[in-house]
């Protein structure tokens, strides 16, 4: 899987939680909090992406990424390990 594919997945799952972002063009530097996702929305989005990738990542590691590009990288790294 490429970063672009994971980013696309994050975008898709984010739109499910925040339907207002239907028309938003997601880029790696987007921060979920700035897109209007509150703390519960963010943990929901992260869980939905993990479910799609069949990955389980500890909550502590998920605090690291500062934008969705870094989040995609974290998922990619875990995919490679798995």
């Amino acid at each position: 899987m490429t970063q672009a594919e994971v980013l696309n997945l994050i975008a898709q799952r984010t739109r499910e939680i925040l339907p207002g972002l239907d028309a938003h063009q997601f880029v790696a530097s987007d921060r979920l909090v700035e897109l209007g996702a509150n703390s519960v929305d963010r943990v929901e989005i992260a869980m939905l992406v993990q479910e799609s990738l069949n990955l389980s990542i500890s909550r502590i590691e998920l605090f690291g990424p500062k934008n969705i590009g870094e989040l995609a990288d974290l998922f990619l790294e875990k995919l490679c390990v798995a």
Partner: protein
Amino acid sequence: MLPELAVTGMGVVSSIGKGKAAFESALLKGDSCFGVMQRPGRQRDSAYIGAEMCEMHPIPGVARQTMRAASLSAQAALLVLDEAWNEAQLSEVDPCRIGLVVGGSNIQQRELERIHEEYRDRAEFLRPTYALSFMDSDLCGFCTANFAIRGLAYTVGGASASGQLAIIQAAQAVLMNQVDVCIALGALMDLSHWECCGFRSIGAMGSDRYANEPKLACRPFDKNHDGFIYGESCGAVVIESLESSRRRGLSPYATLRGWGIAMDGNRNPNPSLNGEIQAIQGALATSRSSPAEIDYVNPHGTGSVVGDETELMALRACKVTDAYLNATKSLIGHGLTAAGTVEAIATLLQMRAGRLHPTRNMEDPIDSSLNWVGGKAIDHQVENALTLSMGFGGINTALLWQRCN
């Protein structure tokens, strides 16, 4: 006598109509829509009959993401609250003086069952919001996050009397000056196949004798009744003092003159004549009304053989025998936790319309000496109405409503 309390706004959703106008029109026409239930999670090798609501989206003023995250019960709550809120012009009231009492407990069983099934073998992916959504009080969260209610909000449970209990609690919150305006919401009880199975096993839910004719299954007070038929519904009523309603220039539907609550000391589902008499007498006493003044009764009337008979015995024992009666459940089914609120709304709408709705499937009443509204609506100006609810666990409630002149 209690200070006068008035209902200044109402919102409702049911299988026969979304919103008061559609609901009232369908009631008076005698519409119903019973069939084998289709909502996911309602059946498992079964064909339970019931009445399900149509699609609820969208609600003006409630964000799409809120509706997406909300359970069916929460969506229905937001919908009826929006209608009642606008009618009672609550945006002009200090939010700290507005309260909300949600009637119902264990109301989201079908949603929970679906989540448990979906994540049974992969608990690590359970949606984090389950920590919020499994609680009934999540409805308080949804409602207060979307409407400016900052006084109080909590749930009260009394099985099928929950809807009336919410009205009584809301009335008490206003009387005790905790808030100026309090909304009572009878929550939609979202049954899964498990609860249907339990209700059927214990003999409360109607059998499958009408499996091939679902429209005939729900028949309160008819000799061929054999249990309740479930129907999805939800309603909200806004309660404030009559004085406050006048100051705000509103024209109330009716005043809530009195009520009764009585426990009959019985954990089981069977009704209690003494408990019902005590609740009715409580409502008559607090409102200082005589039985002869009651000219309309909206009974609990679920279609249960022993329940229907006991209720009519209680009305006779209290000498409430001249009033007209019909059975709202014959049209919309039994909303369980919602029933007490939704039937109060049906009562107040009939009061304002000056017409009483028909009772479906009343071909051979168990007591033909009473003034039933049968197959056709009739004109009648209700002056004083009595509405009744009873719940498992031995709870009996009665509300007494008076026309506003």
